[in-house]
């Protein structure tokens, strides 16, 4: 029980960064970016290149991955999303599916389908009060928590964060306050890219790296972001933790092969009562 709870927390923390990335883009650009999974995969492979092929230590590799995915996100924005900005959220969503296919297959083209891992030695767990805690879990948890705190500080206490929140709140007013939506959009892309890059490396550490890995995270990521209310950073983190806990703890009462259904049932139930997620602002359907 305690073990499952701990596992759930770690799973949730792993989801927190990509869910945050999804929700940040949604807040500013108002569309659900389907390419988060593929970008996460891209991050894992970028980390793999740095760690295994260049022989860099993992923290450096994670930084490299963050940089690469940030760059890829900006390029995707410039080539695709920027041109479709006025065309409605569903068009952008479909476009992001296209981008997702392209990114995933760039990884497949260069690295093939076989599962890969980072060049790190795994360690046996630490036992404490009958609960097993392993080193990756500690690393993952601390990296995610530090990243979340940094993002939180960036959003709440820095000019950049203020600008991002301002654009999310009221883009035309932001424009006349000297904040360009386009610039802020690019910065948001870079930030989400960096988050996804780090998340990719952590996910690769947690499991194996393969071209479909991000696709496997896709649905829980969406579930987390929606649960928290699309566009709410705090909500995304809370949602991620809840999804992680729900999926792991559900093994107590459900056969494991129905685990993936859990996140959806949670969303459905929630949306029945709160049409905009836990922390979402009221958005009226016209």
């Amino acid at each position, binding site marked *: 029980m305690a073990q499952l709870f701990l596992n759930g927390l770690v799973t949730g923390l792993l989801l927190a960064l990509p869910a945050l990335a999804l929700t940040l883009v949604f807040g500013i650009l108002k569309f659900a970016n389907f390419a988060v999974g593929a970008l996460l995969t891209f991050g894992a492979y970028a980390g793999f290149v740095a760690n295994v092929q260049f022989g860099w230590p993992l923290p450096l590799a994670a930084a490299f991955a963050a940089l690469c995915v940030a760059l890829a996100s900006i390029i995707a924005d410039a080539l695709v999303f920027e041109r479709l900005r006025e065309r409605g959220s569903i068009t952008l969503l479909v476009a992001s599916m296209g981008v997702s296919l392209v990114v995933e297959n760039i990884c*497949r083209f260069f690295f093939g389908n076989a599962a890969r891992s980072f060049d790190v030695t795994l360690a046996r767990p630490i036992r404490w009060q009958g609960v097993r805690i392993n080193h990756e879990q500690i690393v993952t948890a601390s990296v995610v928590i530090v990243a979340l705190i940094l993002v939180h500080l960036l959003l709440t206490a820095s000019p950049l964060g203020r600008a991002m929140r301002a654009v999310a709140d009221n883009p035309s007013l932001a424009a006349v306050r000297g904040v360009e939506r386009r610039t802020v959009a690019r910065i948001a892309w870079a930030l989400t890219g960096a988050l996804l890059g780090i998340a990719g490396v952590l996910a690769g550490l947690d499991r194996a790296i393969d071209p479909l890995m991000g696709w496997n995270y896709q649905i829980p990521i969406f579930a987390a972001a929606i649960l928290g209310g699309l566009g709410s950073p705090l909500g995304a983190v809370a949602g991620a933790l809840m999804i992680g806990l729900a999926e792991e703890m559900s093994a107590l009462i459900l056969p494991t092969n129905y685990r993936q259904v859990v996140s959806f049932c949670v969303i459905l139930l929630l949306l029945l009562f709160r049409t905009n997620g836990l922390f979402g602002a009221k958005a009226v359907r016209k």
Partner: protein
Amino acid sequence: MSAYLVTLVILVSVAALVGLALNLQWGLAGLVNFGVSGFVALGAYGVAITAPHIGWLPAMIFSALLCAAISMALALLSIRLEENYLAIVTIGFGEIVRILLLNEGWLTGGALGIADIPRPFAAITPPGGGDGVILAFAIALVALVFVLLELLVRSPFGRVLRAVRDDATVASALGKPVLALRVRAFAVGGAVMGLAGALHAFYLTYIDPSQFTPIITAYAFMAVIAGGRGSNLGLLLGAGSIMALLEATRFLKDLVPSIDGAQLSALRLGMIGIGIVLLLILRPQGLVAEPRRRATEFFPNAKGEG
């Protein structure tokens, strides 16, 4: 070559049915449905499970009604949600269907799937001539659905759906029961997706859960966007061109022989992704525009008066 073309035509037919359904739901009524693959799977499993017992025609009707009923339930449940949330709920529906099919082996054969699904007109099909019959059946089915949907689109029903899509508040202020209209559009779309699944099952005669991945949904959206939202004729063109894109990339390796299989496959799927994006950027209105009712249809001699 000809039998390969038959395969393509049948697959285009399946894609066209799915696309026509989505075009009704999303193109015409403005309701986004990302659970397309789930409805297609339900339709396919519906006939696969029932056809051996009750015959293919009742089985198809059963599948269509089943999908319509589930669509209605889903629509009632989630239709008041904002577009992005509706999208997610429907994605979730598709996944739940896939996982249920995979794990409820007593009914669906689980991962092994269901084999030896009887084809329509199996009794009168000459041995070895099965493809011709199923081809004719597929084309007839698409034609039937196309005509029916075209009747709907060009009828006041289609017009009121467009009105609901444009502005639900105005439509309700004009006395139109918006919720009921949306539920109906969703149900009809669901039924057509069920028929598409049935055709798929009849053609392959073998189905398993891995055939109903979300990629079906992505292709359906591509077809609708390529063809032009709201136009059924455009949709047929769209579905055809998407399948052409998918299959044409298959011939890529005959031209580029030097790369390995995984790379080729990556190149092919990547090109499909680029295709989607290019279509969106270059073809904002799609291939064909929505039909309009002209005043001149009623007053042929009145043009330009007043």
